[in-house]
């Protein structure tokens, strides 16, 4: 009854929050029994959710919106604001996005990656020109981008935040974060892109347990934001046990992405972000819809 199965990427940063919940005893405190089903990657999570093998996964708001539009009533509660940013070697001449002209950019994920769409939108806003024409983009898996950046195969990288944290710990420099680009594009705050995702059926059936879990989750977030000591127990799973610089970098960047509250009625930021992605990314990025599907953010909870 009050047990939830979470399908989570085994290596994901989400594990840090789960570990914090465990260490702080927040699950027992809130009276929810969490079973973690480890998953190899995000595709596995989506399959597992559809197959009914897990109750909750982490997912993109565009995915939830597209699923709703297609008739599968999933819904979500924000989990993280963290995205990524544009990163260059320390001695790079690239100081701003406008310097990207004529450069080779390595983009993690591919042409439909949200960060890439936002960067292109930002470039338009700055210069009025098309970045994909002004610069050469190469697409690849995230670790590959870091690797190529180090080896000089690309001149700038657009990567996810924890890969950037690693790069920064090794001396690279962030030109601008995606959150910064969003702000440059007129959003007052970074939008919540990633959230706890579940079906409305589950919400109806296990609403109680779900609420308790979300409480525990937000409690953990609060602790991670405010309390340095919580982090000490996480160094191992962060893969930074013997690298204090990396540890500090990961911790600080993580904190930037923490969601502190949730008002299901205030979806303005998400709608703006969605509209932006729809305009510059098209259906490959957001699916067939041009507007955020109503109900994408679950009305059954607020914080």
């Amino acid at each position, binding site marked *: 009854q009050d047990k939830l199965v979470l399908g989570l990427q085994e290596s994901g940063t989400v594990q840090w929050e789960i570990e914090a919940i465990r260490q702080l005893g927040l699950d027992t405190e809130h009276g929810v029994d969490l079973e973690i089903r480890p998953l190899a990657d995000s595709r596995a999570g989506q399959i597992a959710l559809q197959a009914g093998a897990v109750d909750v996964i982490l997912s993109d708001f565009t995915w939830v919106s597209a699923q709703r539009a*297609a*008739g599968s009533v999933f819904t979500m509660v924000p989990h993280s604001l963290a995205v990524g940013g544009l990163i260059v070697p320390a001695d790079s001449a690239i100081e701003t996005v406008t310097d990207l002209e004529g450069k080779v950019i390595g983009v993690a994920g591919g*042409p439909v990656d949200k960060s890439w769409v936002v960067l292109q939108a930002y470039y338009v806003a700055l210069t009025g020109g098309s970045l994909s024409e002004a610069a050469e983009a190469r697409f690849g898996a995230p670790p*590959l981008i870091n690797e190529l950046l180090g080896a000089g195969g690309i001149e700038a990288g657009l990567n996810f935040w924890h890969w950037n944290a690693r790069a920064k710990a090794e001396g690279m420099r962030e030109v601008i974060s995606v959150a910064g680009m969003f702000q440059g594009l007129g959003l007052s705050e970074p939008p919540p892109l990633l959230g706890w995702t579940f079906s409305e059926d589950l919400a109806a059936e296990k609403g109680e347990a779900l609420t308790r879990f979300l409480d525990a989750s937000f409690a953990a977030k609060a602790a991670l934001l405010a309390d340095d000591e919580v982090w000490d127990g996480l160094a191992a799973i962060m893969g930074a046990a013997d690298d204090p610089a990396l540890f500090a970098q990961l911790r600080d960047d993580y904190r930037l992405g923490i969601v502190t509250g949730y008002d299901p009625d205030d979806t303005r930021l998400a709608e703006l972000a969605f509209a932006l992605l729809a305009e510059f990314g098209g259906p*490959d990025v957001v699916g067939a819809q041009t507007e955020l599907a109503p109900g994408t953010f679950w009305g059954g909870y607020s914080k």
Partner: protein
Amino acid sequence: MKRAGRERGGIGWEVLSLPLLLGFWQVLAMLAAHRLFPTPIAVAEAMATLALEGRLLEDLGKTLARALAGFGLAMALGIALGLALGRQAWLDRLFSAWLVVGLNLPAIIVAIVLFIWLGLTETALIAAVVINKVPLVIVTIREGVRSFSADYDELARALRLDWWTRLRRIHWPQLLPFMLAAARTGLSLIWKIVLVFEVLGSDGGVGYRVSVFFQFFDVTAILAYTTSFILVVLAFEYGILRVLERRAFAWRRA
């Protein structure tokens, strides 16, 4: 007479094959009535839309170009090496373990190494495809070479045939069944490998697009892309392979 009749009857069956499959699929899809199990009609509509308004043709072109380049290179290399290993026992023995390793190296390893060395380029992608596929061709061809008839080798020696005539007249016909097996399975594998690599590092092509569609669980669009590729393969099968095959194997039916 009787033979010809049988042949003609056969073509009847052939014509039935695809409609039967589509019918079967339609019925299953209607029974399942699930969003993730679209009917062939829905898929055909999606194909039309994607071809006219989307990038289906462009993506298909990219993937086909990569698959064909990979296929051609892998077959050529694989046949040459397969022949060498099949004929020279010591070479075979020396490289047998290499072959096992090559066969079982996961695509991801090959991709990492090549993308890092050669960058995220078309060359790296095709090289990765070739490296993945070549050991498979080698193994099949080598098995074919090993089963060559010693009698015909004796004949070739008695007739003092040069290596080219020997290859064309003695070995090729004996290799053909293995070649066909390698080609038929090969094209499908190449395409699957290209799909994987397009996901790991490229900016277009069927594999890339399928992974995009997958983000939204858009099975209809995935099937539309898959179907269009399969149509190409079917055209290759019936337009080229079967025709060549019928000519090359005329002697078997004699």
